């Protein structure tokens, strides 16, 4: 199981594109893998014959686990991509007949081995540094493996939430697990429903809890008049036609935030130790994108340097790609600051949880015609609330206010967004 991001601890095999016995050329797509964030195709790193599929479809495996074996013609059996050797499975039936064949003439598989070899799911628990381990009794693990049940989807009813035999039996029988035998019968008609979180939502849950518990957040809100920004978008669309088709108000906000971060690098930063803040010289903005079962954050690289229309095209690629789950892992890594826009959901303003270890996130509300006072008169203007959440260890209220003031200045003088130079130039 290749490691496709620093945070990845396990992945699920969605589908195998090759079957046992198929010839495999280097670079052939072997399987599609689902991680917390993205679905990716993995390719063969060497040529040979796919001799064994160790991890069946729909099954989780820890990073580094062997998920299949490629028997190079006459050579050593090849490991699956990026497999460190430490996750060699225990000898036994799972080491299929082809797996150990070190010569071209592999012995004919014995019936018992052949029956036992394929699709033995790896236990999703082994990797070093894995933060959460699925607690399951050995028996439950064995039964789950025999039946192809993914333990991470089973709710344990044993002591401390341990998955025990009855949980597997209940799942196999299509019923929720019964409590321990001596316990009293539950009243009919449950008063609630327990819904298992999707893997993505579980990952989000871990990450937001970690961020909110460890980063001292504070929030600063400012209102921006968006009249000129809306005008600019209209003008660009008129001037460029289809070439500006992708341009959205969000792109202007992203661009403004990126330029403001270049001007205020104290927020484009991360705390690397209690004594040290690392200020990034490049601005990579994470764009929060809602997807059906959660939230993903593709990264717009060098957002401060991209010409506006290029930025718009790239943002569209990232957002559409994220929704369709076809981005590369690279598209999700390296953000230095994030933006979350709920304006399209008719949200006036909100505050966001920082996407740690970044130091800040900008929460964007809707644009709304509101009465404001201009030159002593009450007039209607399109207004938008921006709230920045900031790691107080990195900067303070004045720093956050200065950043917001710069975003506001840029959006209210959007001609500044057309250049790629520093906004205060």
């Amino acid at each position, binding site marked *: 199981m290749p490691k496709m991001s620093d945070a990845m601890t396990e992945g699920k095999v969605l589908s195998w594109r090759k079957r046992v016995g198929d010839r495999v050329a280097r670079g052939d797509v072997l399987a599609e893998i689902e991680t917390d964030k993205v679905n990716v195709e993995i390719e063969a790193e060497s040529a040979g014959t796919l001799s064994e599929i160790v991890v069946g479809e729909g099954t989780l495996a820890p990073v580094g686990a062997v998920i299949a074996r490629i028997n190079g013609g006459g050579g050593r059996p090849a490991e699956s991509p990026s497999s460190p050797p430490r996750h060699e499975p225990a000898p036994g039936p799972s080491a299929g007949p082809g797996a150990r064949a070190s010569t071209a003439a592999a012995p004919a598989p014995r019936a018992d081995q052949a029956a036992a070899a394929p699709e033995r799911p790896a236990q999703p628990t082994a990797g070093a540094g894995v933060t959460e381990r699925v607690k399951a009794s*050995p028996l439950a693990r064995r039964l789950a493996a025999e039946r192809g049940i993914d333990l991470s989807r089973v709710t344990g009813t044993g002591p401390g939430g341990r998955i025990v*035999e009855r949980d597997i039996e209940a799942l196999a029988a299509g019923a929720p697990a019964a409590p321990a035998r*001596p316990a009293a019968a539950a009243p009919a008609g449950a008063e609630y429903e327990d819904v298992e979180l999707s893997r993505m939502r579980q990952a989000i849950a871990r990450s937001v809890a970690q961020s909110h518990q460890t980063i001292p957040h504070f929030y600063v809100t400012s209102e921006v008049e968006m009249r000129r920004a809306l005008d600019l978008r209209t003008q660009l669309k008129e001037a460029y036609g289809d070439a500006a088709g992708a341009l959205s108000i969000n792109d202007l906000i992203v661009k403004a935030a990126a330029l403001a971060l270049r001007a205020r690098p104290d927020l484009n930063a991360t705390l690397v130790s209690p004594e040290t803040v690392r200020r990034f010289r490049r601005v990579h903005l994470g764009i929060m994108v809602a997807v059906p079962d959660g939230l993903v954050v593709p990264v717009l690289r060098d957002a401060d340097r991209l010409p506006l229309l290029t930025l718009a095209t790239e943002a569209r690629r990232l957002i559409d790609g994220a929704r369709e789950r076809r981005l590369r892992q690279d598209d999700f890594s390296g953000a230095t600051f994030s933006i979350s826009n709920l304006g399209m959901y008719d949200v006036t303003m909100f505050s966001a949880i920082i996407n740690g270890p970044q130091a800040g996130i900008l929460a964007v509300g809707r644009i709304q015609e509101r009465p404001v006072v201009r030159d002593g008169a009450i007039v209607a203007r399109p207004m938008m609330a921006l709230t920045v959440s900031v790691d107080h260890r990195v900067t303070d209220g004045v720093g956050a206010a200065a950043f917001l003031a710069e975003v506001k200045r840029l959006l209210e003088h959007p001609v500044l967004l057309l250049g790629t130079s520093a906004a205060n130039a």
Partner: protein
Amino acid sequence: MPDLTYRDALKSTLVEEMDRDPRVLLMGEDIGVYGGTFLVTEGLLARYGPKRVIDTPISEAGFIGCGIGMAMLGLRPVIEVMTWNFSLIAADQIIQNAAKIRYFSGGQAGVPMVIRGPNGAGVQLSAQHSQALEALYGYFPGLYVAAPATPADARGLLRTAIRASDPVIFLENASLYGLRGEVPDGDYVVPFGRAAVARHGRDVTLVTHGRTLHMTLAAAAHLAADGVECDVIDLRTLRPLDMATVVESVRRTHRAVVIEDQGGLYGVAGEVMAGIYERAFDDLDAPVVRVSGEDVPMPYARTLELLAQPNEAKIVEAVRRTVA
């Protein structure tokens, strides 16, 4: 099948074996004139005379060493220790000589000797007279270790011990001598290395030996009333250790609790647990739990002595944790 006490089962078996085989003789402190501290040999001096029922001085190293010599030269001594604690004086003879003669002699000589007597606690004899030594003697190859828990096994295992060609550590218990039970007549033999299933159940395997069998059975009866059915295994001999029966049971129940009189650190229960983990790991649905004596010198005060030992309530609690 007569109903006998554990004591009478032992005595009648000694009589039958002495009648059957003139090489069998008894030796020990106060076993003749006094009839034995726990009256196991009462009346046998009169029946067999001083050449076959030998009262010894208080000198365990001497008379056990003497027994080794007798056994090597063809006799079959059955030696009583007043308690197994006193065997420690003769530990060198038992461990260094009796257990190793067959090995050292390349099989030319053996030591067909039984050492028997009360082992463990339960009758308020304080720290020096209450120790359970099965783990100690179970440690040494060359010895057999038997621990009958019932009158029937007292007969069957003692007969096997007397007929064995190698030294047998035969562990009785003072609290069991008065226990009554049916004892098969005739040439009843219980082979070594074969555990007994004392109660059948599907939910959890309880493994024990010796006097704790009875509190384990009481706990099992208690638990059955709550719907938890225990498979209760009496190991009967600790060397050889019948792990096959234990593992077969655990493969059915998926849970185990191991109960021993004392032990704890480095005890019999730990050994049984290790065997379960080695051979039935993938069948376990819960961690194996042990119930052992407390890790203290056995107190004399009755209340403290009871606290330091396993009991029915501790076993019930352990089983409940296991089936949770």
